[in-house]
């Protein structure tokens, strides 16, 4: 008798854990599960999507800050989540095959990713924001002025004349044909290993802090185009006329079934994402990462200001 009782309790205990994470069946449209990576931009854009969805009568599930980029992608591929923020250039890592020139072009790169994902995974990339969150190099303003650095060509010149350089970057950037290696080939310069500090992760907030404080003599840092701290920290991003790195436009990415079910989603998001320029995203990111404001407050304030919600 007691044996059976224990067995029942055990089974109940195990099931209770599953039921705890079971979602309630919703009545209205949806529910749509929105997920993003663990970062400021993901939190802002994700909250925008959530607000727009609920304003239009959708049930939503908030999974913002779900995990690392590969976890997020996996979650979308396995239907764990419905809607994520991703970047067009990432298509090359998901399996889309195209030449380097394609990835360096915003429209072509988007198309390559779009075609690939729709055919193989029934995942739809909606209309991207016109803000290239790509990998670039930045220096401090005083440093740029003192050495007259404006473009990558100037920087190559500076390096070749034997100027002091200490670059901080992620390992994926440092060894990438479309990253540092590409920059070196395109502009004709070469950095030795002791001119670089290579980090295993791509956390530019940390790199920017090292650049700002001059830790270990760092004077050049990898940055992303929409990093919020660039303006506040008075950094100069070196221009890249050759368009070496792939273009990364933030895009809402949706499961195909939902696009079929609710075709209106595309136009809803497009209106908002069209307004998100590089400058706008930098400002919004700065509010969250730099001033420490809540991402949802920032997102809602922006939508209100632009008249998307009342």
């Amino acid at each position, binding site marked *: 008798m007691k044996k059976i009782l224990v067995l029942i309790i055990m089974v109940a205990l195990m099931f209770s854990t599953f039921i705890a994470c079971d979602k309630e069946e919703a009545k209205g449209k949806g529910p749509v599960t929105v997920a993003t990576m663990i970062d400021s931009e993901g939190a802002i854009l994700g909250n925008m999507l959530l607000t727009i969805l609920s304003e239009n009568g959708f049930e939503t599930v908030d999974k913002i800050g*779900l995990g690392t980029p590969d976890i997020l992608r996996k979650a979308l591929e396995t239907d764990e989540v419905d809607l994520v923020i991703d970047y067009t250039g990432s298509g090359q890592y998901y399996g889309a095959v195209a030449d380097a020139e394609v990835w360096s072009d915003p429209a072509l790169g988007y198309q390559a990713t779009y075609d690939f994902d729709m055919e193989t995974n029934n995942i739809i990339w909606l209309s991207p924001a016109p803000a290239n969150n790509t990998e670039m190099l930045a220096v401090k303003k005083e440093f740029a002025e003192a050495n007259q650095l404006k473009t990558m060509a100037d920087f190559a010149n500076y390096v070749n004349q034997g100027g002091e350089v200490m670059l901080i970057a992620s390992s994926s950037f440092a060894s990438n044909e479309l990253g540092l290696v590409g920059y070196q080939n395109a502009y004709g310069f070469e950095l030795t290993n002791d001119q670089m500090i290579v980090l295993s992760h791509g956390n530019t907030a940390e790199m920017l802090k090292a650049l700002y404080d001059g830790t270990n003599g760092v004077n050049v840092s990898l940055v992303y185009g929409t990093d919020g701290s660039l303006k506040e920290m008075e950094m100069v991003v070196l221009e890249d006329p050759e368009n070496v790195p792939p273009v990364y436009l933030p895009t809402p990415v949706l499961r195909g079934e939902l696009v079929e079910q609710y075709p209106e989603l595309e136009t809803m998001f497009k209106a908002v994402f069209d307004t998100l320029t590089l400058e706008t995203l930098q400002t919004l990111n700065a509010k969250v990462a730099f001033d*420490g404001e809540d991402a949802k407050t920032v997102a809602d304030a922006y939508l209100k200001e632009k008249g998307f919600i009342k």
Partner: protein
Amino acid sequence: MNHGKQYRITTGMGLLLILCGYLTNRFLIVKPNRILEGTVINMPAVIKDKPILFTAFFLLLAGMIFIISKEKIKWYFTSAVVTFVIILFLYGVGLYSQEVITDFTQVARVSLSIGFWFVFLGLMIVLDSSCHYDGNFQVNRLIGFLGIILFFIFVMLNQGYFDQIGIIKEMHIRNEQYWIAVKGHLLLSLIASLMGLFIGVLLSYIGYKHKKYKKYFILVSNGAQVIPTLSFLGLLMIPLTLLAKKYAFLKVLGISGIGYFPALIVLTSYTLLPIINQSITGFETISRDVIISAEAMGMKPMEVFWRIEFPLALPGILSGFKIALVQSTANCILAGLVGGGGLGALLFLGLAQSASDLVALSALTVVMMAMILNGILSVVIGSMKKRKGFI
């Protein structure tokens, strides 16, 4: 007496830490915003600004040293004094931070720096060792005084004394998110440990009854421990995803390659080693005579288990559970990386934004959670041993 001497030394170490905190340059940092380094303030500067509070503070400290040098003092008096000093210290820092931040935008903040933590840790060490003086550890006294401190922290928090402190600011800004994370973290580590407890005790009992299985169970529980946590999560992702894709009903149960479920499996596997080890020891230390006499009295095997073996092994099982629970609380941080939620998600967000206050907030919460759980279980185990007259 020897015992008292030992804690005299730890008290001295605590006081030394406080002195270090006093002498360090970085006591507080007034930051213009979340990321950039601001003005560094040392403790003497704060004292100059709040003389009354801090004179009292140092008078009390001097009194403390006096107390320690005297032999015949009631030690609960020392504990009371230290408790008062801790509250005063926090109050002074809160008051200072309120005055030093003049613009009440959300942006500027006061970060607690190494000096503050030194002093705080030193005070805590002094409080802890003052509860050891009377020969044996006065758990109830320590818990009582910690409770008083927590109460005052809570009151001061409510009154807004800490609103300009960086970690509190981070907490207020994402209030709802923070409490959801705390709840999720607690729930995940608790459920994982409870599942580990159930499986672990079952396996240990089988291993105890049938010796030939014992080494396999120990092997499995050790094996789980060897795999690094993060790669364990990565390894689980693919088979679980395939399973959930193949059998739709599993998805309804919440089984999937990401999120809650893989984190639960990983945490549970890690709890097996401490629980199995301690439980097997617990079962094996039961004297054969007790069991033989129970059987002679006509008890059935299930009765022997429930009335003899299980109660006698319980303190061992529970101390295994305690280790498992504290360990899961810490390991649970990694769930944040795979969508399992919890405080790890906040911690990694802080790392991604290089916002040290957010990292500190999440890490401190995890530490406090582990300490509280550890304390509760220690008291439970202690009282159980006392009641049973456990040798």
